[in-house]
């Protein structure tokens, strides 16, 4: 396989960060696809952005404040209605502490 911008070890590290289990075929495919994309986005380095401020949002709302008032009602049953596993009023997960 041709040299790519990203190694298999990096792909595995990023998958770990993203909590994605990958098969060996997935890893190879993603290495190729991510390599191609990273090579493509390298064209941004043609631009001098040293003195350019980043755009993080384009809206005009800023950070509006509101009074800290409760506007919703307790709805535990509705909130739990899509839970893959529940017991009494709780979400149920595998045991964490031995």
């Amino acid at each position, binding site marked *: 396989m041709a040299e790519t911008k990203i190694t298999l070890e990096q792909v595995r590290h990023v998958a770990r*960060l993203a909590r994605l*289990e990958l098969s060996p075929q997935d890893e190879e495919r993603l290495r190729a696809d991510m390599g191609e994309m990273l090579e493509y*986005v390298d064209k941004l380095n043609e*631009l001098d952005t040293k003195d*350019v401020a980043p755009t993080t949002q384009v809206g005009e709302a800023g950070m509006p404040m509101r009074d800290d008032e409760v506007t919703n009602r307790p709805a535990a049953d*509705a909130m739990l209605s*899509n*839970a*893959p596993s529940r017991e009494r009023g709780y*979400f149920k997960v595998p045991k964490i502490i031995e």
Partner: protein
Amino acid sequence: MPSELNKLTIAEASAKLRAREITAAQLTRDCLDRIAAAEPSLHAFITVCEKEAAEQARVADARLAAGNAPALCGIPLGIKDIYATKGVRTTCASKILQNFIPPFDATVIERLRADGAVFVGKTNLDEFAMGSSTENSAFGATHNPHDLERVAGGSSGGSAAAVAAHECLGALGTDTGGSIREPASFCGVVGIKPTYSRVSRYGVVAYASSLDQVGPFTKSVRDAAIILRTLAGKDVRDSTCSARPVPNYERALGDTVKGLRIGVPREYFVEGMQPEVEKSVREALKTYESLGASTTEISLPHTGYAIAAYYLVATAEASANLSRYDGIRYGLRVNAEDNIALYETTRAQGFGAEVKRRIMLGTFALSAGYYDAYYLKGMKVRTLIRNDFERAFEKCDLIVTPVAPTTAFRIGEKMNDPLTMYLSDIFTISVNLAGLPGMSMPCGYDAAGLPIGMQLIAPPFAEETIFRAGGAFERSGSCKPRTTAV
């Protein structure tokens, strides 16, 4: 002889409903019949809400009979399956949300409900709105009603196809990089992405929060103005949502374009684009000149960098937004020996290939050691793209461009080449990065009979300029709607 009320525009149907010439029940029945007939070949819907729609129509008829009903009362709409709809499954075309039934409505759904709109179903999309063809759906691709072997565009392809095929009178989509405008262009309907922050995103499943925006698909410019007026406006549940008053967009429709200064960016007419697309948009510009507008060449010099900047910013935001799908509180869970393994296997089995690709790229762009070189660089180039438009709008009131370099491509044609697929959005993506309003409307057809779309782009909150110019072009009669193959 079937009544075929489903072929009416919203404005026409609304007038007939209020004059009690037709009923919402009949209109809804015609849409549902059309859905039953067309769906086997189109697959525009993931879920059809027959029972709920009939009940909503019954309530709307009562309200219409009482008089003074809003414009959308009794109007059957399709809803992209990315909007939370109380009690109706919302999948985002993903296995991970296959059985998710939201306990609440998105703000725009709440507003449409309050007006008495009828929801005939939830439309197909690329999984989590990631794609340009509606092929990345866990439930299968949507087909273009003008040619079943071609894509409907994406990500809101189901909504575009449903409106084009008269399965509903209008539909909601979302647009992060062109997901309303490109499918509208491919299917020959009107689609508008409003200014970022014009419409609340509360209850719209997030893909890239700084780019996502809500908008309608319709058969006419007037219908788009009617729906947008209902959708837009302040919402305390979306802190980015603008408090600016919402104009009556319909009023702008009758205005002439005399004196309107139209900018034509040279970077949007490039080598490799389908010649018929360029020809059709250039002819539309001539129509505008004959109506009294002036056209002038402008430059948006950073256009060639927009896709690269977008795929860093959007995937970074997506990787954060999609971290919530962990198999704990809702959605798919694949059990494993511990919690970490549970997250990893749930996400591995729940997400499709394109979603994983974007989560991976975004996680990489945000990771230690790469943040500055990728994510930060993307946000800085975003500033340059915004500045391009700001400068251009000193010389013109409206920018007119093609929506996509080609008409609808074949199903499967670009599926094995992600980068080529991404390049389909080359003319729409800058508008999201700059937060501007943009509308796609039909301006012609290619030799194969496939629709061509033109894009009208205005400064922030100048949707009225778009409606003014869109209405004038529609009235000129230069592009007659054609019936679809299905």
